[in-house]
């Protein structure tokens, strides 16, 4: 797996280990991180297939941990000269104080949370290209059976990244990270009104999965249905006196924003997190258990090994409403005296690894969805979301609905236009009044932090949040 990286650098593990250890002398940890990636992307809009894109990215980074801070030198291209220059320059960066904390690691890496086979099944990109084109034409034709469809946008991409991490402590790990993505969006026009809808997947699976007819037909049907429903939408109401029922799957984005980021340990390391010092305290209603699990088979956020070379884990963050864990990197773990959880991730070799989520979800409860809806007098059922955001320090979070409908006296009513929903992480989840048993984990999702975008998933069963916790911002 790492043979291509080693041959590009005209080196071997022994030599790279020696170089890394020499370059990182004086620090108390760190690594040489090397990556070699390729990607293929093709898309279709207005019935025309647009230029395929084939890209190659390779490079590396030397990172020296100096007592809970890190110096890093990165270089594009797996060029032995660049690596040698970085190693030399690292010694020229003056260090502050001598190391006082001990950097811990977390044992051996897990294996096999996704395929280690060639993502195209051994087929060359040239040979795959016409197959991808044929698939997109089939999807386009299927979507256009609905006469209201004025545009179909389809994008398909596959990528694969080999990484080799040579650590200052002498260990090394390799990983091969695949990703197959298909997204369908439609624009509907009816009675002079326009709406769009979309659905897709991006998972570390063989590209064959994208060709499953039942799968892509479901994406198209879902996208059309989404746009159709929004064509009927009335102005969203506003106020903080609505009970909310948040549907399973993508609904987990609320938890991701309200809690997830607040439980990333780097914020705690600097004393700026809303949940600072709250370990062991109740931060959510009884019955709410939140888990970050980087080991789910074929899930988009899963990793065999994190970007510091530590194994990923199933980490319980909130247990029956009580905050019990944080997501750490080696630096934040050392600084806080907590275990290394395998959550250090980087967008690419040119970025610092920092604590990040993987697949984060609320675990199943035992209520039924029907009962949760039936229990609402005045409320809103939110089934789909756009992006979300959180102010990590104040705990204010917000996200936008892209599909939602009114609930009155336990009955579902009209669809409403997109509304922003906002609340406070510290209090909102103490208003959870019911957790259903229909846990679903998303098959798409990207999360941004400090300018780094990563593949993650969110998940939850359907949940009920009592009035007063979340403000609905509509125009009506």
């Amino acid at each position, binding site marked *: 797996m790492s043979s291509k990286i080693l041959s590009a650098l005209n080196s071997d593990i022994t030599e790279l280990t020696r170089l890394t250890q020499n370059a990182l002398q004086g620090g108390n940890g760190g690594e040489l991180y090397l990556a070699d990636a390729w990607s293929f992307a093709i898309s279709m809009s207005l019935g*025309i297939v647009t230029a395929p*894109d084939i890209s190659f990215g390779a490079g590396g980074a030397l990172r020296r941990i100096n007592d809970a801070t890190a110096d890093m030198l990165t270089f594009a291209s797996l060029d032995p000269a660049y690596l040698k220059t970085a190693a030399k320059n690292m010694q020229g960066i003056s260090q502050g104080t001598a190391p006082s904390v001990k950097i811990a690691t977390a044992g051996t890496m897990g294996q096999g949370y996704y395929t280690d086979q060639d993502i195209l099944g051994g087929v060359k990109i040239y040979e795959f290209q016409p197959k991808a084109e044929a698939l997109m034409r089939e999807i386009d034709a299927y979507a256009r059976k609905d006469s209201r469809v004025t545009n179909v946008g389809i994008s398909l991409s596959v990528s694969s990244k080999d990484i080799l991490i040579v650590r200052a402590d002498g260990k090394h790990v390799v990983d091969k990270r695949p990703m197959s993505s298909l997204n369908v969006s439609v624009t509907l026009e009816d009675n002079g009104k326009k709406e769009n809808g979309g659905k897709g997947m991006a998972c570390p699976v063989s590209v064959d999965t994208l060709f499953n007819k039942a799968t892509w037909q479901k994406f198209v049907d879902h996208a059309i249905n989404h746009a159709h429903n929004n064509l009927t939408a009335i102005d969203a109401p506003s106020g903080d006196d609505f009970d909310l029922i948040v549907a399973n799957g993508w609904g987990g984005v609320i938890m991701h924003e309200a809690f997830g980021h607040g439980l990333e340990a780097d914020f705690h390391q600097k004393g700026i997190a809303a949940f600072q010092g709250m370990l062991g305290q109740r931060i959510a209603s009884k019955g709410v258990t939140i888990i970050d699990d980087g080991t789910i088979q074929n899930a988009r956020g899963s990793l065999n090994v994190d970007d510091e070379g530590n194994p990923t884990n199933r980490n319980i963050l909130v247990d029956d409403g009580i905050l019990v864990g944080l997501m750490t990197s080696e630096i934040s773990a050392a600084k806080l005296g907590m275990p290394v959880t395998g959550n250090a991730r980087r967008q690419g070799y040119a970025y610092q690894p920092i604590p990040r989520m993987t697949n984060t979800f609320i675990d199943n409860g035992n209520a039924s969805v029907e009962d949760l809806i039936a229990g609402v007098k005045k409320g809103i059922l939110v089934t789909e979301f756009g992006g979300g955001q959180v102010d990590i320090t104040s705990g204010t979070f917000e996200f936008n609905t892209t599909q939602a409908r009114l609930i009155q006296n336990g009955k579902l009513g009209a669809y409403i236009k997109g509304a922003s929903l906002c609340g406070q992480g510290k209090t909102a989840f103490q208003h959870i009044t019911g957790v259903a048993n229909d846990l679903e984990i998303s098959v798409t999702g990207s999360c941004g932090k400090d300018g780094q975008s990563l593949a993650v998933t969110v998940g939850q069963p359907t949940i009920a949040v009592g009035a007063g916790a979340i403000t609905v911002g509509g125009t009506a």
Partner: protein
Amino acid sequence: MSNKLDICKKAVALALKLGASDASSSLGVTNAMGVSVFEGKSDGVEGNIDCGISFTAHVGQKVASGSTENLTDDSVESLVRTIVEAAKQAPEDPFACVADKSLIQPVSADMIKYLDLVDSTEHTADEMLQMACEMEAAARSIAGVASIRSADVSSSQYEHYLVISNGFEGHYKTSSRSAVIQAMAELNGEKVINYDYDSARHWSDIRPMASIGIKSGEKAAAMLNQVSMGHKGVLPVVLDPKISVKLLLGTLQSCLHGGNIVAKGSFINKDDLGTKLFGDNINLLDNRTKVRGLGSSPYAGSGIIGPESVNLVKNGNVENFLLGLRNAKQLGLSPKLGRPSLYNPYFEGGTLSPDDLIDNIKLGLYVTNVMGHGFKAITGDISYTVAGFVIRDGVITGEYVKEASLAGNLKDMLNETTFANDLKFNDSANAATARIEGVSIVG
């Protein structure tokens, strides 16, 4: 490594030899350095060497593109062969094209000199650490500031090369310098964070470190006096200039994008060209050649140089879309403006001072922060979570509303917007303080 312009020329020549009818090659190299400090000490020094070549091959109406980060002869040759082969296998795209020869012209050396995008002053990592420490200390000197999230100073140099088979050749260099700090203030367990920054092409245009630090601390401390308006309904809102950019300029820009117009994904349609959609006072302009401008460039990626300044919206009329070559051909319009995206866009300022703009507002909200992704280009609907200060009897009070919902429609809002006379060109995109009459606010 060969001369970088030669790498591009060789790549284009090889593609033509392999059967491409057209080709274009774009190469970029960035050398960057950044430092962070925390509690007066280094929180990390970072150096990045980033490079890459993007390549597009046309075989008649068939096109493929790709890129590699490895600029060795072997790697670039292998990329060119792969992309030409992929183009031959690609389906025909009736809208594929390179810029017509009549639209391109040589890049003027005088223009590059005039733009003044390269700073010859360099600072070492140690000097930058010292600057960041000064910024941090200033932030921490403000009453109420308890900690900082980050204090970063960074600098980079960038070189760009572009060669197209239609005869275009261009290259230029830029430098970027920036300082940014996030200060945290705390009162009775309530924590708030705010930031200040400056970025420029030249170190000499960056504000003093202490001033950036102080501003971040003051902004954070001002958020400690929190109130709830308990309001639900329509209110006049006044947008801080940075918020004007995000809420009005950023959103409008995406609706004028050719790709969105073609795909019918914007509330603005092709037929709206030349139509008055917004208030008389709405003028959206774009200046490609602002001296030392963060968004300035001597040419567009298509090789088209285009006019220095363009009106996208004039007196409320939609005058131009943002068009790359392909979108222009799809819409039957000319790509001659050379603006697939904007360089240094701005809304023209108004005549009233910000104080006069606010003067007759009995109750309103002065918005200083916007969260979220609540804009839908296809309908123009806006729904964001915002924060800011209560305006009462014509004065911005110190009462901070940390969470309110703002909802409306961009088209309606741009018919009820008045800009003040405080337009400054600090960033690549700029706007003045703006007042919008009727916006739905809960908070």
